[in-house]
């Protein structure tokens, strides 16, 4: 099958070809680049929502319930769920799909034509997503999925990867998700647009909520202070001023609070569409992925072309100078 046919299939909603296109991209087969180049003009219509948080907080459960809610609202939903790959064997246990079960027994999300779920191993990438997650999202986007939910690896470290791919970032916490310091260290307050305290049926939800709101208010004060300084037009600061980060409570396995969460997700999307932040985020994303691709290409070219030089006994500083001078010339 040629790339043309696959592209045509992806765009026209052929699931089988979409599934195969994802494999091609994920495995970085030779035709991957051409495929991505061809579908790129068809992307940019989906709302990409990142779902992040420590392991076990209920990300997959929330993804499932949100899928059901968005379907109720008539939206098609693509899901990419990333789980960690073993750094030793490369193997991975991809167990997010098993939570895919709506509350409505008459509506089977597994068989819903307008739901597409794909599991990914992180394959060595840190930061909560796989190297190819962004490109897989583009395929789902080109295939016409309106809401794309991305569940990241809950590593508990800085999950900044989600920022590279998502328009809206939802951070999930739960009572007793470790101490405040752990959460602070993870930089979670900065990356989230919406905060959810899941498992509110458990004791301690009020405490987390109080603490979280306090931390967010400190953050807000800083933003307001900064805005009084000269660079008040700085886009990032303006963004923060225009969006007061909401804190919600859910009991995901019972479906409690999911409607409200979906409402906030929609509201965030409307706000960033209107104030230009969305366009800016997307420009930034395109720039970053171009840089990443270029760097990768140059790196492998260097390794290929300078094999002999690299093996020689020469100090790395001189060698680097030499390579840069030659690369820039061509």
């Amino acid at each position: 099958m040629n790339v043309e046919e696959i592209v045509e299939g992806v765009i026209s909603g052929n699931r089988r070809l979409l599934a195969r296109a994802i494999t091609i991209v994920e495995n970085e087969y030779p035709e991957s680049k051409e495929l991505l180049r061809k579908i790129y003009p068809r992307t940019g219509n989906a709302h990409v929502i990142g779902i992040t948080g420590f392991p076990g907080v209920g990300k997959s459960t929330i993804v499932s319930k949100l899928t059901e809610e968005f379907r109720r609202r008539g939206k098609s939903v693509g899901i990419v769920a990333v789980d960690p790959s073993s750094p030793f064997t490369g193997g991975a246990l991809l167990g997010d799909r098993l939570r895919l079960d709506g509350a409505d027994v008459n509506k089977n999300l597994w068989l819903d034509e307008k739901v597409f779920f794909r599991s990914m191993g992180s394959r060595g990438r840190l930061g909560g997503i796989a190297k190819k997650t962004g490109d897989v999202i583009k395929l789902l986007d080109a295939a016409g999925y309106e809401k794309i939910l991305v569940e990241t690896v809950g590593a508990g470290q800085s999950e900044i990867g989600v920022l590279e791919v998502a328009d809206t970032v939802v951070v999930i916490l739960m009572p007793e998700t470790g101490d405040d310091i752990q959460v602070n260290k993870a930089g979670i307050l900065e990356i989230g647009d919406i905060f959810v305290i899941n498992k509110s049926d458990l004791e301690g939800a009020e405490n987390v909520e109080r603490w979280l709101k306090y931390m967010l208010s400190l953050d807000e004060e800083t933003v307001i202070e900064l805005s009084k300084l000269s660079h008040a037009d700085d886009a990032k600061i303006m963004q923060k001023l225009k969006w007061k980060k909401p804190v919600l409570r859910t009991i995901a396995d019972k479906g409690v609070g999911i409607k409200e969460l979906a409402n906030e997700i929609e509201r965030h999307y409307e706000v960033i569409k209107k104030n230009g932040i969305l366009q800016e985020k997307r420009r930034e994303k395109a720039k970053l992925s171009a840089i990443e691709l270029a760097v990768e290409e140059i790196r492998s070219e260097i390794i290929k072309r300078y094999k002999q030089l690299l093996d020689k006994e020469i100090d790395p500083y001189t060698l680097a100078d030499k390579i840069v001078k030659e690369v820039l010339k061509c």
Partner: protein
Amino acid sequence: MERIRVLIAKVGLDGHDRGAKVLARFLRDAGFEVIYTGLHRTPQEVARAAVDEDVDVVGISLLSGAHIPLVPRVIQYIREYGGNPDEMLILVGGTIPHDDFPKLREAGVDGIFIPGTPISEIIKFIKEELPKKRKGKSK
């Protein structure tokens, strides 16, 4: 970078998935990407997952004794959903009487593993048989 993707599915009504979970874990340690479906999946659900996840191996585990209608149905639905079961390794695990082996094989099953089969044997089987099956996902 290529990875072998394996779907481990529990089909039917039996509520035991310890064996399936242990197998999933071992397969992960052997370097596979393992997607686990959870309990009580229908043949359609398993087939849909196999196609959408574009897996190389489908492992169906059942203890209920209903393998004869259920397993062929999974294979039939994979085809119906546009997948090609001939390019996948289809494995069945569970209490399956010898008399039923031919019927399952005829339906397209590549490997049958009864309780007590060492997991290492299953891994070996996948590694040896999959290359014969795969026409290669890259064209």
